């Protein structure tokens, strides 16, 4: 119902006017995005079929699909893909749950000092990731880190070797990224909550609906149109977010067991200068995310109006 104008139904003068109107609304965005993305994308497609590496940086040529074969032949590919999926899912689930939870709590009218709470809660988003991720690495340090100091001094628990065991190091990176990511989802949800008319809750109260059922039946469905784009893109960004895991685990420690797919791209391109292979892996990542988002958007029906 929100898509009010179906252009083909309008009269011809109005149709012409609407065409222009639409064009002016959309053209700047389309031009800008295409200008930045189109050429690099096609360049990459070509690169992924080439032999460009440190030995052929100027005289590279197209060699076919060998680099793709090499990507899938890489013995660690599937393992790292699995880790990437775990990384993405765990992060997003926590980002959204914590973000929406806090937004709903803050939205209640009796909460005092709302502005101050909000600012405290967005701090993880406000500081540059480069320093916060390294601070978390410091906090996970086995001898000097705040986390182990609290565990051993106040809780009488044994120190955990956070950064030197593969599972713990991966968990440490995920915890850091959850901390970094929930304020964004909270802000989105706070914005979304504003569009829900209070009358709906009043009516529900008259019917005697519990807080939980109000959340299930009013808040969730009405928050959806605002959250779906954030979640979709959150998944894409987290899948490709090299910074946090790289900084927290110092580039894959221990023993390269805390990598996600993009850190392979980075390593291949910039420590081994295997540009062809890195481009092919980028295309594979692209294909994975493309397939995923198509399915996700179809199932959530996000392109169409929500209600």
């Amino acid at each position, binding site marked *: 119902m929100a898509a009010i104008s179906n252009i083909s139904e309008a009269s011809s003068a109005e149709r012409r006017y609407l065409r222009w109107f639409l064009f002016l609304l959309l053209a700047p965005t389309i031009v800008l995005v295409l200008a930045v993305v189109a050429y690099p994308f096609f360049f990459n497609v070509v690169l992924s079929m080439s032999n460009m590496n*440190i030995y052929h940086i*100027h005289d590279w040529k197209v060699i076919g699909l060998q680099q793709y074969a090499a990507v899938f032949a890489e013995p660690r590919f599937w393992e790292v893909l699995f880790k990437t999926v775990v990384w993405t899912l765990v992060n997003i689930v926590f980002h959204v749950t914590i973000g929406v939870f806090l937004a709903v709590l803050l939205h209640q009218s009796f909460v005092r000092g709302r502005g101050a709470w909000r600012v405290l809660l967005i701090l993880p988003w406000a500081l540059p990731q480069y320093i916060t991720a390294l601070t978390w690495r410091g906090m996970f340090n086995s001898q000097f880190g705040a986390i182990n100091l609290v565990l051993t001094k106040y809780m009488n628990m044994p120190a955990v070797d956070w950064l030197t065991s593969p599972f713990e190091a991966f968990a440490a990176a995920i915890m850091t990224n959850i901390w970094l990511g929930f304020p964004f989802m909270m802000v989105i949800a706070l914005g979304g909550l504003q569009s829900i008319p209070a009358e709906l809750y009043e009516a529900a109260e008259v019917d005697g609906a519990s807080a939980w059922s109000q959340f299930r039946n009013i808040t969730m469905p009405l928050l959806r149109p605002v959250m779906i784009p954030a979640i979709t893109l959150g998944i894409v960004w987290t899948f490709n977010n090299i910074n946090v895991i790289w900084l927290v685990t110092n580039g894959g420690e*221990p023993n390269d067991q805390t990598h996600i797919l993009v850190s392979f791209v980075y390593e291949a391109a*910039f*420590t081994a*200068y295997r540009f062809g292979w890195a481009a092919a892996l980028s295309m594979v990542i692209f294909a994975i995310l493309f397939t995923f988002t198509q399915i996700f958007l179809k199932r959530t029906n996000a392109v169409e109006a929500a209600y």
Partner: protein
Amino acid sequence: MNSAVHPPARSASAVGLCVPDRVSDSVFAPARLFGFGFLLALVLVIAGCGDGSDVQYVTIWHQKTGGERAFFERVVDEYNATHSDHQIRTLYRETEELRNLFVIAAAGGKGPDLVFGPSDNVSILALTETIAPITEIIPDEFISRFTSEGIVSWKEKKWMLADQVGNHLMFVYNKDILPSAPQTLGEMVNMLDSVTVDLDGDGTIDRYGLTWNYTEPYFFIPFLTGFGGWMMDSEGNPTLDTPEMVAAVQYLLDLRDKYHLIPGSTDYDTAEAMFKTGRAAAIINGPWSWSGYESAGINYGLARLPFNEKTGYWLSPIYSAKGYSININTPEEKYPIVRSVVEYLTGPSMQTRMADELATIPVVESVLDSDAVRENQMLQLSLSQVESGRPMPTQPQLRQFWDGMRGPYQLIMNGAVSAEEGARLMQAEVEKRIRDAFL
């Protein structure tokens, strides 16, 4: 207003768009709309517009840090103050980024005129055809004054002129805990044992004898060489799965698990913090770290890494030259001024000053033989370490060695694999990476 906001040093080149004053006024008029035009105009002004003067710039990207960076900026200012037709402009970048950004920039036909970095970059830059041999610009009589370490060659061409050799790891000890440094490994174990203690009696060790970075294989090399091993043969093939390697790794594991003289796990920052807070009596670290110990108030001493009396080898760290290379895109008409800059920054008088103020090891014969250098105690200590050190290999596959050794080294130091397994993993990992690099 345009000129008022102009930065003092205007860029003559490399600017996107230049707006003469009167045009920016016209940009100004409709600018009330969102203030957008105003901001855009500011952007253009801030980005700096060419003022048409013909001062030429020699740009240098470097990775000098700490006291060395401060010194470098000072001598560059001195140079700029005495030259009016050309100026030096510098840009710091972290070592790895410096190399990557330089390769991207130079492959695209741009980049700085000069790039300063460690010698292990040279073969990669030469292989990617992003630098030109220094002999194109610097005359032979200048180059001939350098020691062999000061000229970095690869495939029979000279690619880099150094202003120092360094990056050599040494034995650094806290004199308040450890009165003197050990000469041999046997001595080391005894001395460290006497200072490794459980101070509060809670059953855990509060102060270790020695610590170092367990995550970078660079810090493992002295042990490998101390047991007679080396990373590669003369062709650059890995020689990591050898009895020497196993013996070296086993020695480290014994230090940790049998004698309990080194901590169970550390990385670079942890090792630094342990030494600076007195939780470790000694540390293995390089010249970049020493001034930090002084400012942390540690009464520290430097010593050559010990001798392995069982094998007859010194523990030999790697040392590397650091110096300048010339971008392949530097236009020929700039050669004279680039030459003048390189000769200023690497010449005998500069190296004398550096040796004096920074205690870096000079690579010009006359400076190395000078009295000032002979009488500088710290420098002589460094020199004795470099004498028993090994030069940084120049092969381009060196990166694959570091990357391939890193993971297994971490596994070994975490106690996850045995010495034999660690050696086997290193060899396999490096071989795979070298193979992969060709695709």
